């Protein structure tokens, strides 16, 4: 059995989570604070992966990233033919696919504390940016923790999207879930058992740790 799929999966999940925290935080802030009438439409787009079959998302991503889509055009800038069936393409797909799991908890956390702490900070001469980092983010830290963990864990387990846009290239796009599928297809039960069991233990540990951390943060600060 090769470790490659496991390492690749961890890399993908970590990178996806970091990107999602960077992109998702301002998006969650905007969704929580904006008065724009069309923000719920944006929120719905973000939430779509919750409902869509992963293959549908994967199909559209394939169109988007393939040689004839914008992804293909982008790839041509560095001489590649397409972004489908690459690690980069997989990252883009994972970011979209796991976005609701990160944005939603952060948005909820931003909404939970209301206007008052922000108003108080403004009366104490904190600029909006200052307020964001010294008041809003610390107050929403539970949401950030939940979002990061869910985003990471969810990316680790994705299968349908990967199959559509990633294929099964060892070291490039062959992640854990695909590897397990592969082992089962080829009747390598022991390897399948090992990976599947490992995922089970991992998932259990992640969720348990998160719940305990949440409890501690909950007691510590708020």
């Amino acid at each position, binding site marked *: 059995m090769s470790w490659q799929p496991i390492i690749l999966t961890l890399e993908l999940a970590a990178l996806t989570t970091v990107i999602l925290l960077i992109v998702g935080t301002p998006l969650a802030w905007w969704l929580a604070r904006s008065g724009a009438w069309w923000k719920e439409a944006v929120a719905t787009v973000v939430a779509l992966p919750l409902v869509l079959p992963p293959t549908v998302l994967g199909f559209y991503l394939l169109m988007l990233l393939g040689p004839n889509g914008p992804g293909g055009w982008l790839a041509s800038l560095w001489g590649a033919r397409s972004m489908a069936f690459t690690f980069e393409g997989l990252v883009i797909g994972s970011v979209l696919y796991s976005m609701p799991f990160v944005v939603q908890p952060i948005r909820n956390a931003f909404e939970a504390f209301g206007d*008052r702490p922000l108003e108080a900070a403004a*009366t104490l001469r*904190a600029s909006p940016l200052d307020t964001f980092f010294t*008041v809003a983010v610390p*107050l929403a*830290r539970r949401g950030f923790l939940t979002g990061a963990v869910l985003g990471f864990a969810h990316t680790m387990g994705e299968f349908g999207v990967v199959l559509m846009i990633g294929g099964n290239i060892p070291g490039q796009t062959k992640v854990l879930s695909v590897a397990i599928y592969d082992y089962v297809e080829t009747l390598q039960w022991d390897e399948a058992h090992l990976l599947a069991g490992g995922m089970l233990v991992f998932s259990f540990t992640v969720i348990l740790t998160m719940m305990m951390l949440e409890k501690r943060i909950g007691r510590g600060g*708020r």
Partner: protein
Amino acid sequence: MSLSVHFHGTLGQFALDVAFEAPGRGITALFGPSGCGKTSVLRCAAGLQRLNGRFALDGDVWQEGRTFRPTHKRSIGYVFQEASLFPHLSVRTNLLFGHRRTVGRGVPEHIRLDDVVDLLGLGHLLARSPEHLSGGERQRVGVGRALLSQPRLLLMDEPLAALDRFSKEEILPYLERLHGVLSVPVLYVSHDIAEVERLADHLVLLRQGRVVAAGPMQELQADPTLPIARMPEAGVTLPAVVAGREDAYGLTLLRLDGGHLFVPGDLGPQGTARRARIAASDVSLARNPPEGSTILNALPARIVAAERQDEVQMMAVVALGEEGRGARMLARVTRKSWDALGLSPGQPVYAQVKGVALVQESL
């Protein structure tokens, strides 16, 4: 006059149009029933809410026409009804939140952490989390935090309204002390007349988004045509100085503008300044100096105005002193006695004070 306020616009159901001037020192209370727009005026002054109008402090215009200075660029301290402390910071870091952003950036330090800690009795709370404070303690920290941001204007939005009676009594003396040492003007929103009478120097009476009257508190209190004179607890709050003592009887003699009053208890050494509250229902009028009465205080005065309140009651305003040039008091008397004694404005009378309901420190 150094605070110039004018806001107008629509607020939910009604139109608000509030304009007044307030002095550059002392506490100006915005007083009125719930929903009269007083909190909105305060929020507009802070820039937390925007209505059309103009706002200037010492000639420094914060809002006019298109000019609108955002909240974080206004030199204010704001005390919310609920203290709104930052739950993720300790009491000390809460207190220093605004301080770091003002003194830390070169604003002159008028009040230091130690001063605030002493003034508000916060020493034992500094290391704690706001979660573990009582309501009154939290509000004291909120006041301290606002003061430490070195404001040029302190805005207080019903800071006692969310507290129970016990916490209120605990925090009021601190606010009274504050009143003595603070050199910046305070706008204080309240719907509790007792609180206003203990703290305020100036009064802006609001009703349904309009100013009913504005001016020094004693003047407004002694105006029988205003709605506050119709409240059952109507009365006046007069500055007084301890003029002497009668230790054998446990009494203190207070000097008012135009007269003297005996009050029970020890109110400090001679020269101590106090605030004496005299309720309209505690004052009765007599045409002759009373004889054979147990009432201790009968002050010569002149009737200056009178207003019929209802079928039974008259509200009379008397000015202390034989010439009627001193402080003004309200007296609530029955119309029957009024007519029986043939009282009318201009007449000399004796104001019998049955009780000084509240005597508070005013430094």
